[in-house]
């Protein structure tokens, strides 16, 4: 019978307690390595979460956007706008889209109600805007197909616009004036909110407040009655699911290119693909930092290996005594391997603890979203124990190969 694993752990542990200072020095490299792995993982996790939140707030991963292509050389001719007719054509070509919204936004102007006024951005939109933006009305209704078909003078207010003009009273059915046009309020949007990341804005803690300062009329009404000189700068679609968004993006891109006679006046992007791109870049970022952490773990491992080798040389006689009273090669091997693993495991636990401290500090001082997960703890623990196993093998093997007679003769 050999000694058990628990026994080896116990022997290893008492050795560590006996040589506290040495053990502490030994594990610093591991602590730092594990700590940096924790921090990097938490930051990457946080970044992914922020991105997803932001994408979600902007209409989710099924969204496809058509916008002016800023990298196109407009001196070659062409204008990055659509007419209402072109928009209708395109809309007819993509019946598979779950939602379709083309919009045109005016420069902020005063919206008037009786004596009071509020400067807001007026947008001409399609009824599907609330689907594309994943938004809803708080009261009344949103614009509908009849409003678009009949060029109705209907308006839906953002929550800030409504409260600034009407206070606590209901604006439904009231008439407001924009650029000389009387418009009837049919609904009020729900407020949008997302906490500001990266050090509060000078204006508001709400990163989406600008959305609450908007008002919406049918696109047809805007272009025919309010601002006939305006053109449509782009449009949004929504696919049935994120996978279909990829296909929809390609199809819309082809349609728009055809319509504009091969000129790439517009860029067509899907949120899904944007997200993948962001993920790829955070992957590269995290890979670099994980590599740095791994290097520091390797250095820590080599330090531990050398200290263990020195320690075994110092303890040759002890090993001889253990061999004399019946320790087998495996017992000696396990004793020293367990000792190394215990040291690195301890380093891992300390690294996890200090990692959390650093994560909290980073989160609160830099106002960066960090997200720790239970999986990270397992990764860190496994990595530190793994380092102990790998770098403990050579010293343990050397100890187990000692010849009993020579070991006993050692001074």
């Amino acid at each position, binding site marked *: 019978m*050999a*000694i058990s694993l628990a026994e080896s752990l116990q022997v290893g542990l008492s*050795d560590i307690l006996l040589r506290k200072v040495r053990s502490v020095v030994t594990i610093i490299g591991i602590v730092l390595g594990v700590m940096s792995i924790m921090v990097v993982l938490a930051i990457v996790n946080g970044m992914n979460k922020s991105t997803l939140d932001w994408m979600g707030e902007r209409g989710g991963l099924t969204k496809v956007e058509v916008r002016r292509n800023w990298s196109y050389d407009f001196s070659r001719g062409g204008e990055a706008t659509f007419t209402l007719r072109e928009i209708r054509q395109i809309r007819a070509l993509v019946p598979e889209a779950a939602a379709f919204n083309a919009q045109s936004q005016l420069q902020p102007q005063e919206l008037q109600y009786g004596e009071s006024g509020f400067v807001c951005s007026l947008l001409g939109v399609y009824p599907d805007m609330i689907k594309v933006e994943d938004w809803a009305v708080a009261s009344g209704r949103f614009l509908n197909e009849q409003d678009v078909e009949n060029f109705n003078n209907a308006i839906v207010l953002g929550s800030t616009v409504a409260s600034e003009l009407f206070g606590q009273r209901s604006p439904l059915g009231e008439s407001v004036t924009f650029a000389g046009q009387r418009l009837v309020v049919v609904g009020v949007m729900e407020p949008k909110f997302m906490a500001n990341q990266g050090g509060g804005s000078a204006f508001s803690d709400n990163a989406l407040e600008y959305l609450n300062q908007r008002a919406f009329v049918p696109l047809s009404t805007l272009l025919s009655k309010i601002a006939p000189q305006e053109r449509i700068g782009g449009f949004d679609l929504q696919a049935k699911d994120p996978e279909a968004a990829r296909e929809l993006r390609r199809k819309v891109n082809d349609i728009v290119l055809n319509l504009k006679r091969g000129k790439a006046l517009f860029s067509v992007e899907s949120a899904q693909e944007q997200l993948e791109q962001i993920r790829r870049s955070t992957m590269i970022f995290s890979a670099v930092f994980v590599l740095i952490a791994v290097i520091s773990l390797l250095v820590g491992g080599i330090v531990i290996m050398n200290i263990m080798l020195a320690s075994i040389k110092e303890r040759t*006689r002890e090993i001889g*005594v253990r061999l*004399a*009273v*019946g*320790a087998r090669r495996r017992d000696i091997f396990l004793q020293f391997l367990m000792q190394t693993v215990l040291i690195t495991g301890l380093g891992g636990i300390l690294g996890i603890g200090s990692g959390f401290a650093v994560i909290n500090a980073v989160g609160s001082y830099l106002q960066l979203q960090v997200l720790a997960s239970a999986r990270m703890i397992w990764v860190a623990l496994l990595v530190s124990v793994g380092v102990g196993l790998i770098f403990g093998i050579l010293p343990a093997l050397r100890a187990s190969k000692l010849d009993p007679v020579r070991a006993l003769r050692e001074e």
Partner: protein
Amino acid sequence: MADIIWTKDLIKDYELGKVKVRALNGVDVTIEEGEFVAVMGPSGSGKSTLMHILGCLDRPSAGEYHLDGVRVSEMDRNQLAVVRNRKIGFVFQSFNLLPHLNLLKNVELPLMYAGLGQKNRTRKAREVIESVGLSDRWRHKPAELSGGQRQRVAIARAIVNNPAILLADEPTGNLDSQAGGDILEIFSHLHRQGNTVIIVTHDQAVAGRADRVIHIMDGRIGNGDLAG
């Protein structure tokens, strides 16, 4: 009485650089169960080598060795470790206690490698510590004891597993005559209880206590067996 040790034509060669040194040159030894034997010889005679082989710390280059009815000369390292653990109790000149363990843990060491549970270990170790007269000291570290006391701990460790033979290498070499006498008395006592005791020594006084003295010279057994 049965033979506890029986060797035939033991040979041990060492390579010292390019030179081959023959430390044992055909040693035949027979020791009966319950004997008290002293092994004497000048330094370089091969008595340490013989003791290492009899103690299963080393293997002969050639020849046969049977210990307690088992042929051990052909065993591998791990099998020899088990034999040392079960059948042999060592007492060294320099005590060889582990300095960072207390007496109890030192004495428990062979039991641990024998795979005994903690409870039984402690009970057995306390018993033998008591039998060598140190029952009130079991918490102490070796450095807190005198040389004689340390050697008594070493004896306790050697007998805790009820070995077939007790093998002592100059056990009084580092002790004053008073403490040395006490240690020899313990060996005599163990011998009277039926243990087989083998002591390697320079000291005629030590050898005088033995039933029989085996002289070794130039790697061979001399013919000066006192008790024949």
